[in-house]
């Protein structure tokens, strides 16, 4: 039901862009105003969300560890699983962000006849997630050929690598296939597994269908129903030059694509997609486990009034001297 609702929502958004541009002629609204609103919403929303997270106190180190902590020299210490300093924590974070290291340990519980509960390794989610995220990044960077003029050398190189196999014309990008394939798996995973379906919400399906819609319209424009690509570049250059232009007759699919992207980035700060920023701020990941090495003082503890022995001695020096008590300072 959640899945159907999200699918319908995405289809309605697509129809909205279609009728808005080629029915009502609101190309300027869908091509300029909405993208600008979306970009501002994304940037401001992202910063506010991160600042809100940053205001929560982290009084103590709470990293999740699954290796031996650094202690005595003859006990073998696992630097990555239980980082003892900032650099190790940085390495662990880098592996987490670039290669989803913790997801690699993903396991699956299955109830077999008997009844017997069986746990097993399950790498498919890790693989699907990794392929999806990396492909999306490459596809996004490739789009800089529309955003920039002249196009930087690195973008050309990436495109050439991505069209390495020279299949078809326009040459099929490897990442287009990987992206759509991985997305299909990620949607299918939620739909086909009854337990996953039970815990999946609109907030899970909607971004998936939205990105799937973006990917499909993008591929459709490149390989099948071509749009006026020079006009597309003019429009996007206009947006980034803060000098918006709306060339005529670009084609409806472009506006559908652009509107879905606008919705995606405007929705970003309010959704689970914020894991993009959140991964960096995870206290169970980004802290070194130095609880026993360093003293951590809770920052909101009330100030304790203390009276040191030096101060005590200063106060009662004369009396103590008379009574013949030993003094630190004469």
């Amino acid at each position, binding site marked *: 039901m959640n899945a159907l609702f999200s699918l319908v929502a995405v289809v309605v958004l697509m129809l909205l862009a279609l009728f808005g541009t080629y029915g009502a002629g609101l190309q300027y609204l869908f091509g300029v105003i909405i993208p600008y609103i979306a970009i501002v919403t994304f940037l401001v929303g992202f910063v506010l969300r991160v600042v809100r997270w*940053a205001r929560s106190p982290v009084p103590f180190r709470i990293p999740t560890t699954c290796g031996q902590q650094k202690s005595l020299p003859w006990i073998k210490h696992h630097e990555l699983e239980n980082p003892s300093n900032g650099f190790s924590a940085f390495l662990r974070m880098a592996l987490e962000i670039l290669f989803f290291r913790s997801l690699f340990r993903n396991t699956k519980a299955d109830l077999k006849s008997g009844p017997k509960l069986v746990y097993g390794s399950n790498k498919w989610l890790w693989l699907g997630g990794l392929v999806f995220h990396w492909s999306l990044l490459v596809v996004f960077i490739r789009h800089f050929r529309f955003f920039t003029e002249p196009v930087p050398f690195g973008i050309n190189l990436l495109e*050439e690598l991505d069209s390495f196999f020279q299949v078809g014309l326009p040459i099929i990008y490897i990442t287009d296939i990987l992206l759509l394939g991985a997305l299909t798996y990620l949607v299918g995973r939620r739909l086909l597994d009854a337990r996953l379906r039970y815990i999946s919400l609109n907030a899970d399906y909607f971004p998936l269908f939205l990105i799937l819609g973006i990917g499909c319209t993008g591929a459709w424009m490149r390989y099948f129903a071509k749009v006026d690509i*020079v006009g597309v570049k003019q429009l996007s*250059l206009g947006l980034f030059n803060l000098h918006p232009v709306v060339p005529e007759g670009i084609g409806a699919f472009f506006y559908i694509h652009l509107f879905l992207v606008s919705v995606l980035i405007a929705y970003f700060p309010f959704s689970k997609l914020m894991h993009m920023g959140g991964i960096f701020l995870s206290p169970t990941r980004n802290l070194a486990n130095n609880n026993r090495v360093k003293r951590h003082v809770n920052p909101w503890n009330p100030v304790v009034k203390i009276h040191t022995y030096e101060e005590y001695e200063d106060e009662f020096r004369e009396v103590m001297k008379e009574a013949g008590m030993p003094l630190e300072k004469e």
Partner: protein
Amino acid sequence: MFDGWKIIVGLIIFITLATVPFWYDAAAGKGTDAPDIRIETKDVPGRDQCVMPAEYMRSDHMELLNEWRDQVVRGNQRVHVTADGRKYSRSLTNTCLDCHSNKDTFCDRCHDYMSVKPYCWECHLEPEVMK
């Protein structure tokens, strides 16, 4: 904020990366002008129109060329018959480039603008070289 400076540095890096197209385009200063495409063609006797309507060619020329290549190289079918019965030799160098001899303005301007690198010229000689 706790660990404030680290988070602020991270946010600054993020905002900078997220707005790369804005400041790149401002620095490049190329504006939004479309490429200056010259589509005028040389007068070739007996040739007054293209193998396909201009609208189709504008968006789908690469598919036609790809089809032609496969049909010639793999099927030895060298004659293209248009919908209204005109016959053409399926050849980039001898048919297309006959009229569209101005590769640098006709082909390259758009391809450069869109950062498209057609691999036609890995085998075919460029028109200038032929002269």
